[in-house]
């Protein structure tokens, strides 16, 4: 029955050495061993219950942006992705060929953003993203991971950050951005290694690597708000953690442990996480669970919450609201994963004059199709990724906005890609980019 379904939408011509070359070295027995390890000892009772409970009703289909974007192609429904991966692996006891495994890796890594929207449409609340993550784990154990994504994991393993930023480059970038901030505000600093500071500010590697200006924006905001903060001069400053999405949980655990140990070494009272969603997820949910901690040892505040508190308490004030029409992207990991939808809107309303909300929004917003490691699968998969999120382009176009505020690095890059691909004539901005434009700098601090 299922064979008759059309599958013409599936990208056939993508070349990715991380999948194409690695499968050549595998035997079905090796694949079976990895499958049995992950589906046996590594997965708890939850897997069996999920498999027994799913009634194949397909009610999750319309939750998925890839399904909606690809003209309701049945192969892109969340349950179909599980059918073509896990069900097959279980039915065949892991005895699948390399080619079949490649197809499963394509589904698990490039067609699911692990955004968990489908769990809100499944009547049983089955964690479908978790099932897909099991497939990624199997692929990772076998070395079958999209090359660009595996490179970020390798970078984490070698440098503890995502983009091969070296120790001296990190400090150098911080000092460069401190100078930039001093051009804006008197006494602006990015204090390194300040033991006992109230706040440790965490960023992810793309900031020092390609978006360094974001660091001086934060220096301005911290200075105006008059807060006691610090950043580490050692490794442990990046917790973006692509290993969490490539399925290399051992490295994921190392990255999170070092991040929290660094915060503990600096004896800070709390950690403020920059505008990144999956770094928050890694630090607060996935990392601690892997390490056997119920909660992180030190409270973590996401940037959205942080700005909300600063604005609400009047620690920073808006000089003049941002004029262009803006809309917003609710990142999965901070809105579905942290319930910050209202606070995000408070911040946006406080900063911007013309705000048009997206529909559906908050917990029900569509995924950016960049998170969950999908954008990190790199250029080979970009076209497929764009085709998988036409629904986002349509949703954004309806707002008529010039700017889409994206308080998450993945959303920021992914939506900028969609804007370009579908020619929407808008741009993405982080909250901090708009905030430093609108913030009131007290007379005595003006440089």
């Amino acid at each position, binding site marked *: *029955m*299922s064979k*008759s*379904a*059309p599958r013409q939408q599936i990208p056939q011509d993508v070349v990715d050495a991380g999948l194409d070359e690695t499968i050549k070295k595998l035997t079905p027995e090796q694949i079976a061993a990895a499958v049995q390890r992950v589906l046996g000892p590594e997965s*708890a*009772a*939850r897997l069996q*219950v*999920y498999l*027994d*409970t*799913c*009634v*194949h*009703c*397909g*009610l999750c*289909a*319309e*939750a998925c942006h890839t*399904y909606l974007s690809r003209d*309701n192609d*049945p*192969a892109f*429904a969340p*349950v*179909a992705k599980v*059918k073509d991966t896990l069900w097959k692996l279980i039915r065949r006891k892991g005895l699948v060929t390399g080619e079949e495994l490649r197809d499963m890796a394509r589904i698990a890594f490039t067609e699911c953003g692990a955004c968990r929207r489908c*769990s*809100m*449409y499944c*009547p*049983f*609340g*089955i*964690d479908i993203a978790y099932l897909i993550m099991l497939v990624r784990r199997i692929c990772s154990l076998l070395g079958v991971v999209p090359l660009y994504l595996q490179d970020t994991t390798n970078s984490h393993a070698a440098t503890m950050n995502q983009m091969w930023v070296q120790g001296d480059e990190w400090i150098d970038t911080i000092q460069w951005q401190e100078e930039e901030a001093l051009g804006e505000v008197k006494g602006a600093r990015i204090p390194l290694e300040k033991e006992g500071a109230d706040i440790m500010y965490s960023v992810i590697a793309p900031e020092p690597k390609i978006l360094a200006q974001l660091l001086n924006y934060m220096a301005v905001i911290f200075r105006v708000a008059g807060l006691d903060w610090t950043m580490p001069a050692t490794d442990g400053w990046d917790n973006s953690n692509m290993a969490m999405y490539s399925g290399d949980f051992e490295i994921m655990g190392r990255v999170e442990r070092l991040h929290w140990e660094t915060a503990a070494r600096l004896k800070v009272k709390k950690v403020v996480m920059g505008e990144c969603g999956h770094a928050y997820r890694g630090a607060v*949910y996935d990392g601690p*669970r892997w390490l*056997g901690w*119920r909660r992180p040892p030190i409270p973590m505040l996401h940037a959205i919450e942080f700005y909300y508190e600063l604005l609400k308490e009047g620690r920073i004030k808006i000089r003049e609201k941002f004029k262009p029409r803006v809309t917003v992207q609710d990142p999965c990991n901070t*809105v*579905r*994963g*942290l*319930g*910050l*939808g209202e606070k995000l809107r408070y911040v946006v309303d406080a900063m911007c004059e013309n705000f048009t909300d997206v529909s*559906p929004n908050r*917990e*029900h917003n569509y995924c950016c199709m960049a998170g969950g490691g999908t954008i990190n699968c790199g250029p080979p998969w970009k076209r497929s990724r764009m085709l998988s999120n036409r629904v986002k382009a349509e949703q954004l176009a309806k707002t008529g906005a010039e700017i889409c505020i994206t308080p998450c690095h993945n959303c920021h890059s992914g939506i900028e890609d969609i804007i370009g691909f579908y020619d929407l004539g808008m741009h993405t901005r982080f909250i901090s980019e708009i905030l430093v434009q609108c913030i009131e700098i007290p007379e005595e601090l003006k440089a």
Partner: protein
Amino acid sequence: MSMYEFATGPLVWIGVLAFVLGCIYRLLALIGPVKRDKVIVPYMSWRYSARSVLNWLTPFRTRNMRMRPFFTVYSFLFHICLIATPLFLAAHVAIWSRTWGFGWWSLPGDLANLMTFVVVAAGFFFLLRRIANPAVRYVTGPGDLGLLAVVLAPFVTGLLAYYQVFDYRTVVTIHGWTGAIWLAAIPFTRISHMIFFPLTRGYMGSEFGFRHARDW
């Protein structure tokens, strides 16, 4: 004992026993893994579980239910009638009181009849959806159709018996067998969502609640 007597007597109890023991077995089998678990149980919350289960048991409360009103109506009607009709059917209650000496309130005949028709009609819609909706057809296997047949068979045979189509005693005998198979199948097939629904829903509700978000 004739086939008819067996099907309306001991077989009923075999079916009920298989259902009860099967459910107990499935839940007991979870105790070991739950004790070893460190990633789910610590995050389960009674409050958020109940919140999620109640929201998902309220018609049109969730966005997905509002997105497909027709499905929501027949799906709720199907499940309510599926459980209530066999429990409160006058002929069934008569069997309980004959065996145990006590019965309970039973449905008026016409209403029970209507409810049985609702189950069969909704089951037909489920079948239609499986065939006509490409996303559902893609994940439909012979097992899914078989399961629908197992669930619907007691209701179809019940109607046949009520209207005395075909030989009454034969139809009732088949009805007894299909009913027993249906009961016994609940804990061991995907109909086990009946017992696992509060657990899976509760877990997802807890995860969302723990994260200050709504899951409906």
